[in-house]
């Protein structure tokens, strides 16, 4: 899923500035635009839909309460995902045991590829293994990859959201992809197509 690329970059900033001036409807528009990307982002941390929704709600509450800290020099999405990442990190670390155990359980409960056409079974197996391989990545590598490929952010934006350098983002993405290729080598060799 690529994030709302049809929107002008400064449109979100305009809404956020209006919200800072007291226009609550502008925040509601931002909420409607970004709730799905934020749920998706949180889901990458927990692999649980219900927890992802809780985290997403908490992230938007934080954005609402911290509205005065937003500066239009940064894109709204950068600011939002910085808050999202920090919140998810704190929550996952705080309740690490819970997420870890339930994530493994959720992984084993995924549908198996025992039936259906061969292509469908192959795709489902790949989806399952990719989910696991993503979950096994270090958090910073996974976050960079999610922001890049699922949310369509540039390296500059990812660097701002993760509070690091563009060079570090490039390195994180390179290592993340290298690890995933290694873990998914079986799929590549067996089917020659992901």
């Amino acid at each position, binding site marked *: 899923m690529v994030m709302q690329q049809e929107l002008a970059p400064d449109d979100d900033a305009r809404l956020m500035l209006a919200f800072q001036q007291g226009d609550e409807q502008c925040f509601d528009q931002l909420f409607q635009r970004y709730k799905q990307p934020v*749920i998706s982002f949180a889901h990458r941390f927990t692999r649980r839909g219900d927890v992802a929704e809780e985290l997403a709600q*908490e992230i938007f509450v934080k954005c609402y309460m911290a509205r005065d800290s937003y500066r239009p020099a940064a894109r709204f999405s950068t600011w939002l995902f910085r808050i999202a990442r920090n919140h998810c990190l704190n929550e996952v670390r705080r309740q690490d045991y819970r997420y870890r155990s339930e994530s493994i359980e959720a992984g084993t409960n995924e549908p198996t590829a025992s039936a259906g056409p061969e292509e469908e079974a192959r795709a489902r197996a790949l989806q399952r293994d*990719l989910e696991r391989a*993503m979950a096994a990545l270090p958090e910073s590598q996974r976050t960079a990859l999610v922001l890049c490929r699922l949310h369509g952010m*540039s*390296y500059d934006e990812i660097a701002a959201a993760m509070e690091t350098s563009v060079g570090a983002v*490039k390195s994180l*993405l390179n290592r993340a992809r290298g690890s995933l290729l290694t873990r998914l080598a079986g799929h590549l060799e067996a089917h020659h197509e*992901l």
Partner: protein
Amino acid sequence: MNCRKCNKHLSAWLDGELPRALADELSAHLSSCPACAERRRQLEALNGAVARLESPQASPGFDAAFSRRLLQARRQAAEATAPRRRWLFPLVAAAASACIVVAVVVLLRGHDGSRQSAPAGTPGELVLAQNLDLLRDYGVVAQLDALEDPEVVMQLHDLLPSEEVTP
């Protein structure tokens, strides 16, 4: 460009994040190196698979749950600031009382019954005069018998610029 350098930059090349010159160099290498071309194919396939990862859709009750959570957070924030105000009130009242006492003493000592002279006052007196309504709201003024003296109140009002005098 050799394979090692290609491998280092291939990921950024696929994301369109390489400078033009380096991107051209890498493209040229890919067209002549089957091993790196195969890695490119694998990475492109991987990118496609990542983009197809499923994410849960917002549940029907998501918006309502968020509204409740936000309302709760706003209430908690309001409650967190309320005790501070209550704690501040006696201090504000005490400070205002002290200012008023000083100002009234100064006014009474300087009061000679002639109000024909041009309005004048110290900065402290001016602040006091400008904030009479606020001090009444805090219940400070009402506690001071001296301000019930019409002469003192009139003199305080005379200190204000004409446009600030409330009718």
